[in-house]
């Protein structure tokens, strides 16, 4: 594979797409398993938003690369080590509390992220951001409402939500990391400075957790590695299922 014309931009769009696709896929795994019919629809909604964002981003990445790879080539024909999503989004659904905490962590970041991205010097990314920001706001509102309900619901729901917070907290450091790729695009006015979004994320977290009557987990050593393809063992199984058809029947149109 040749080096794309703008490797940094390609990588940046792909990792952003990977984040949304992997999380969207996780949400789609809930199909037929949600705690209420209304929530069945809400989970599918969020999943659809994320998969839609991923499609736009992969398509754009393919254009930037200029090698003829389309959204499906990028989604279905890259290996676990090539996927660059953050670790948070690949964590299993586990129970509903884990799913909603994961969503809250992600949406509380993506909301200011897409807001900032609307000002990107890259017209395509800012265009995608314009649509995505509304979706992220809904995801944030929806997940925050659930965290409040679960935190302030029953003893069991409180305990489960606390366990989910404690378990997933370690993956939140990666949200705010900036590597060379991101920094170089920040210089060009294309990327968002993730580090600068921490205060707003903290505010959303503190406010939601306070309303939910849940303690914010203490500071601990964070895990990261997703951006360089160092994933947890969960991603490989997700990809084996997701990519099966494209791997088993290569080169066909569906």
């Amino acid at each position, binding site marked *: 594979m040749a080096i794309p014309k703008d490797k940094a931009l390609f990588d940046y769009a792909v990792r952003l797409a990977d984040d949304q696709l992997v999380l969207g896929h996780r949400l789609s795994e809930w199909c037929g398993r949600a705690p209420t*019919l209304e929530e069945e629809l809400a989970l599918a909604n969020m999943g659809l938003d994320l998969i839609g964002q991923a499609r736009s981003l992969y398509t754009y990445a393919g254009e930037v690369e200029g090698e003829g790879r389309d959204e499906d080539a990028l989604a279905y024909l890259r290996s676990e080590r090539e996927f660059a999503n953050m670790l948070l989004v690949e964590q299993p659904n586990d129970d509903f509390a884990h799913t909603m905490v994961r969503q809250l962590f992600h949406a509380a970041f993506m909301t200011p992220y897409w807001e900032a991205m609307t000002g990107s010097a890259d017209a395509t990314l800012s265009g995608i951001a314009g649509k995505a920001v509304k979706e992220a706001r809904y995801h944030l509102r929806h997940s925050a409402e659930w965290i409040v309900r679960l935190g302030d619901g029953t003893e069991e729901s409180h305990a489960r939500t606390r366990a989910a917070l404690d378990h997933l907290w370690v993956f939140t450091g990666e949200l705010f990391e900036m590597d060379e790729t991101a920094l170089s695009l920040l210089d060009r006015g294309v990327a968002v400075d993730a580090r600068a979004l921490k205060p707003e994320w903290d505010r959303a977290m503190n406010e939601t957790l306070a309303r939910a009557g849940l303690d914010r987990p203490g500071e601990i050593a964070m895990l990261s590695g997703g951006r360089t393809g160092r994933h947890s063992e969960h991603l490989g199984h997700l990809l084996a299922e997701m990519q099966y058809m494209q791997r088993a029947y290569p080169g066909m149109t569906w």
Partner: protein
Amino acid sequence: EAFLEAFQERIDREEKIEPNDPMPEGYRRTLVRQISQHAHSEIIGMQPEGNWITRAPSLKRKAALLAKVQDEGGHGLYLYAAAETLGVTREELVEQLLQGKAKYSSIFTYPTLSWADIGAIGWLVDGAAIMNQVPLCRCSFGPYARAMIRVCKEESFHQRQGYEIMLTLCNGTPEQKAMAQDALDRWWWPSLMMFGPHDSESQHGDQNMAWKIKRFTNDALRQKFVDATVPQAEFLGLKVPDPDLAWNEEKGGYDIGPIDWDEFRSVLKSGGFCGRDRIRNRRRAEEDGAWVREAAAAFAEKQATRQADAAAA
């Protein structure tokens, strides 16, 4: 007597019956049964298609399938709401389903074994459902009729989407075309059975026709479906798995071979191939989600108390 006559006159005048209108107990019972079975079918029907969401072969198909299954959940919601206007709760109805006491369309007890099944379900199963449901948009019971208008609009979109999946497969590699043929082979007869027994065997037919809950007989709708679908299969270049299928010039429609009603009855009786899994999956989802629903209820109660306290203060 006089009441029944007056009611029938309203029906005959094509007036819509609304939830608070007086209605015969049989009318109410029939509607509750039919609407709730319909709602259950939408909910159970999410499973065979849901089975392929995580393996859909392209992002476009993945999104479309997820959206479709979501629509089915939405249909379930409207329909439970329509049934609730007749004085039952969604919880009661769902409980009947989980206990195995309520019926749902037996088409959803068949497994989805390849991606082509997703196409075949959209094309054939949604196609058959539309034939059944379009007349229900004029059903005498207002809430049901209005729910069906919304449902039908979405179903016909799904039907076109399913057909388009089949078309793509049939324009693809020989392997893909074989997949499509295999799916047609497996889904054809079950789709014809969706219209129910022959008119001569149908139990509730006449009264439901009189009450304008039903407007066409099973056989008439089945015929309509066959006549619409066989040319579509031909266009796809697929063979309908019925050696007796033949154009009948006289009636201006197709004659079909005998339907295997033993299979139909055995599915109804045993729950069919996946019926036990379908109910088991729903039961597990209900059990796994119980703590969430309890939390939401507890929270709502606390909120209500807080607001009452605030108002009193």
